[in-house]
């Protein structure tokens, strides 16, 4: 698995499958015709460097370039190549930038190249790399600039995140220089660590104004809708191609993204593909830096996140404002920006947890709707009673229809749970039996096929519909005929609505999966090894821990996602190794069962003291059914982690308290209804299977 060697040309690691031991990228590059180089650069979507064909021997032909002797190639950018050169007349070393396509550059490219020179030449600032001369030699356009001895910030970053003070100092200086550029009407538009050089005096200097835009300049070299720049540092307005919104605040965003990376070691957004990154830049909220690395000062996090606001007006209005703020931080003075308010945080949280938000919203809406419906019915009944004083709440036709709907609800609940398991299994590519096992979520997601998707939507809607109808009938019967609300019915209603919505949720997740994929961080083989070892036993928790040890600064969510993906590749490589063991009593989750029983017993004891039950047998029936109901919630909720699962017991306990305290006659009624027992049976079934762990088969 360890890479065999390194490409001498581009320095990339070569994998084992490299053809003839040669770097595939360089091989392809060698096949591109030279004259098409400028086309590639013009049509490149993002950084067009890989696609552009620069003849590898350009330097050989122009070893002496006018007044300059070319010494070595320093860097290659989107459009140009930078050489270290010696200017013979002045006997000094300079950096010489030329268009990659050389004499074949299109007029557009030359215009953009000269624009860069113009943009930078107007800026005489100690922290901006100065331009000396712009010219043309034998058809090659070039400009010479200061040669900065040192590394770029990106290379410095490769050793890990910087200490917060140092990062703040760099960004403050860069922000001041950028403000200087803004005042002279130049936007940089491609700020990233690779475009900041750190000189021998440890001062940052900005370079590469290749995408710079002269403000108030009408001639647009970039067309509307065309995206240029580095996705990870690109402000949302630039990612969306809204060129009209690009202004000083856009560079402030890039400064924030840079600060973020200096602090945490990773850019705020980095998807598996450029497209995914752009999507995240526009839609997602960055993870709070302190979650990735706890020792970042809160003030610095506030400053950083303010720069990364989606709306330009919410950021610092100018780079100077950012520099001043960082200065305050460095001097230990209170900063002016306030941490995001609770509302703002809530909104941001909601954007990052659409699933939870959706669930809570749906629950709230459903409860509100039925609350209103209940009041409406109650009102109607009271009005009817006013009109006809003899009207009383006695059993009638609604009672009969409720009986039928109860049966339908019970059926819907059963259909709901089994279709949920079936669809979930399909979504993870599991057999029915595998999908019952505890480790089901560790299997990779795969796209649903058309029939399963249709089935899932249909079953989900029908099951939810039945649950809703039963609730409507229950409320009507309760209001008009004084019918008791039985725990069995509530169970049918809750379960069928919940399981039906969960089935629909899988379809939504499938849609998101197919459209956006997942983001990733590249790990080295050595980093992966301990995680892989932990995964051999399918121990997700241990593997997650190993990941966070291997990658300092990784958040729990990121670690968990990575581990799940690793499980995916492990399973793809060694199919058949990971199978659930047969069900047995020994593998049951006794701990959870014990804790659940204890909580129920305490509740029952308290209840017994407060409201003595009508009959001990009914109390025992209540205990048993709500115990199993609680266990079922724990087991079937798809929630990971013992404490989170136990939290789910709260509704079960509440149901028991309510049914005992508020509906004292329920005990007698429920002894005639099969609901609690059916529910208890189902819940017990899921408890059994949830106790089973996936183990690695001995090979």
């Amino acid at each position, binding site marked *: *698995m360890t*890479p065999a060697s390194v*490409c*001498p*040309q581009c320095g990339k690691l070569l*994998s*084992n*499958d*490299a*053809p*003839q031991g*040669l*770097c*595939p*990228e*360089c*091989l*392809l*590059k*060698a*096949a*591109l*015709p030279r004259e*098409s180089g400028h*086309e*590639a650069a013009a049509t490149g979507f993002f950084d067009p460097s*890989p*696609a552009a064909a620069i003849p*590898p*021997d350009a*330097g*050989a032909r122009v070893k002496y370039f006018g007044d300059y002797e070319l010494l070595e190639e320093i860097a290659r950018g989107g459009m140009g190549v930078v050489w270290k050169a010696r200017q013979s007349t002045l006997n000094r070393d300079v950096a010489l930038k030329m268009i990659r396509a050389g004499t074949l550059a299109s007029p557009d490219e030359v215009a953009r190249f000269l624009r860069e020179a113009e943009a930078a030449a107007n800026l005489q600032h100690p922290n901006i790399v100065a331009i000396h001369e712009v010219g043309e030699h034998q058809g090659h356009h070039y400009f010479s600039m200061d040669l900065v001895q040192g590394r770029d910030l990106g290379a410095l970053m490769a050793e890990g995140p910087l200490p917060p003070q140092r990062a703040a100092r760099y960004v403050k200086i860069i922000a001041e220089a950028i403000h200087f550029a803004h005042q002279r009407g130049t936007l940089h538009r491609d700020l990233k660590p690779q475009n900041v050089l750190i000189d021998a005096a440890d001062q940052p200097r900005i370079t590469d104004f290749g995408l710079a835009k002269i403000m108030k300049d009408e001639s647009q070299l970039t067309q509307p809708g065309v995206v240029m720049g580095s996705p990870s540092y690109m402000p949302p307005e630039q990612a969306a191609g809204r060129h009209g919104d690009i202004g000083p605040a856009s560079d402030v965003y890039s400064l924030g993204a840079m600060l973020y990376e200096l602090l945490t070691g990773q850019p705020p957004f980095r998807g*598996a*593909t*450029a497209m995914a990154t752009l999507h995240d830049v526009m839609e997602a909220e960055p993870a709070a830096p302190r979650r990735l690395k706890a020792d970042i000062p809160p003030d610095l996090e506030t400053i950083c996140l303010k720069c990364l606001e989606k709306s330009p007006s919410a950021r610092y209005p100018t780079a100077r404002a950012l520099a001043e703020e960082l200065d305050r931080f460095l001097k230990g003075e209170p900063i002016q920006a306030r941490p995001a308010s609770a509302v703002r945080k809530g909104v941001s949280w909601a954007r990052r947890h659409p699933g939870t938000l959706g669930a809570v919203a749906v629950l709230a809406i459903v409860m509100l709707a039925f609350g209103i419906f209940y009041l409406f019915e109650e009102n109607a009944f009271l009005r009817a009673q006013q009109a006809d004083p003899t009207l009383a709440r006695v059993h009638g036709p609604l009672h009969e229809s409720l009986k039928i709907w109860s049966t339908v609800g019970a059926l819907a609940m059963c259909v709901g749970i089994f279709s949920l398991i079936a669809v979930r299994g399909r979504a993870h*590519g599991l057999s029915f039996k595998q999908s019952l096992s505890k480790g089901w979520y560790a299997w990779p997601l*795969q796209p649903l*096929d*058309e*029939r*399963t998707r249709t089935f899932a939507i249909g079953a989900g809607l029908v099951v939810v519909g039945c649950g809703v109808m039963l609730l409507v009938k229950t409320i009507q019967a309760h209001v008009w005929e004084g019918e008791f609300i039985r725990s069995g019915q509530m169970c049918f209603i809750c379960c069928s609505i919940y399981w039906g919505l969960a089935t629909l949720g899988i379809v939504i997740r499938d849609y998101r999966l197919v459209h956006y*994929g*997942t983001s*990733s961080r*590249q790990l080295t*083989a050595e980093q*992966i090894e301990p995680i*892989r070892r932990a995964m051999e036993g399918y121990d997700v928790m241990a593997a997650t821990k190993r990941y966070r040890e291997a990658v300092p600064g990784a958040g729990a969510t990121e670690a968990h996602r990575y581990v799940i*993906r*690793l499980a995916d*590749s*492990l*399973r*793809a*490589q060694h*199919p*058949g190794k990971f199978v659930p063991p047969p069900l047995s009593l020994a593998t049951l989750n006794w701990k959870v069962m014990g804790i659940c029983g204890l909580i129920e017993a305490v509740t029952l004891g308290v209840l017994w003291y407060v409201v003595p039950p009508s009959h001990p047998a009914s109390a025992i029936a209540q205990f048993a059914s709500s115990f199993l109901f609680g266990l079922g919630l724990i087991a079937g909720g798809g929630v990971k982690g013992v404490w989170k699962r136990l939290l789910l017991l709260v509704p079960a306990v509440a149901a028991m308290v309510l049914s005992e305290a508020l509906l004292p006659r329920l005990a007698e009624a429920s002894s005639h209804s099969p609901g609690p027992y059916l529910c208890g049976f189902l819940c017990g079934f899921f408890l059994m299977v949830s106790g089973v762990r996936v183990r690695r088969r001995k090979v």
Partner: protein
Amino acid sequence: MGLMGEQCSHLPNAEDAGGFQTTHWSLVLRAGNREDRDADAALAALCQRYWFPLYAYVRRHVADAHDAQDLTQEFFARLMEKHYLAVADPQRGKFRCFLLASLKHFLASEWKRGHAQKRGGGVRRLSLDLDCGESRLGLEPAHDLTPERLFERQWVLTLLDMVMRRLQDEYKSSRKAQQFEQLKGALTSDRQRLPYAALAAELKMSEDAARQAASRLRKRYRELLREEVSQTLAEPGDVDDEIRSLFEVLGR
């Protein structure tokens, strides 16, 4: 040299490319559903070459190696019966895109039918060395590529591997195997970086001759790669664009 190499090439229909104006994929497309022996042979040749990326894609979706092998075989059988050629598709211009789109379509319909069904009865099968594919896949580093990207990456590697092999075979057949081994590094390196003096000494020729040999190797390599790429395109003029997009596949 080039002519000899082509005659010796073990790849089916390698000599067609020079002889016909049309490339393989455009030939297949033009024949459509009609019976056409040339087009059938061309399609078979294309499939023989590019089955591995498809297998890698299928393998990411299917847990069991045997299932994946069956599915791949079945897919090619269907392809040979030209089920998918009838489907109008804007992506047919490139064989690569057509294959992936058809495969996705095929897998979706296979999932619908269920995997258990017995396959391959009475249909023509290509002899694909599927076990070799499994071991090759085993060497793959654990990466986070999506199946689509894995497919594209494997496509590029397969293509390059094929071209390099052809090049090697050509040099072998003209008894210049050693020259190939020594000079193949020239394909990916800057000219001035290559130690020509040392290479020339190794090959017992003058430094200038070594330079020329390297340049010939580069030229021939470029020809072969462009020819191979053009075989998978409906419009031979799009070769540069295709190479560029293959390049982007690797860069991602």
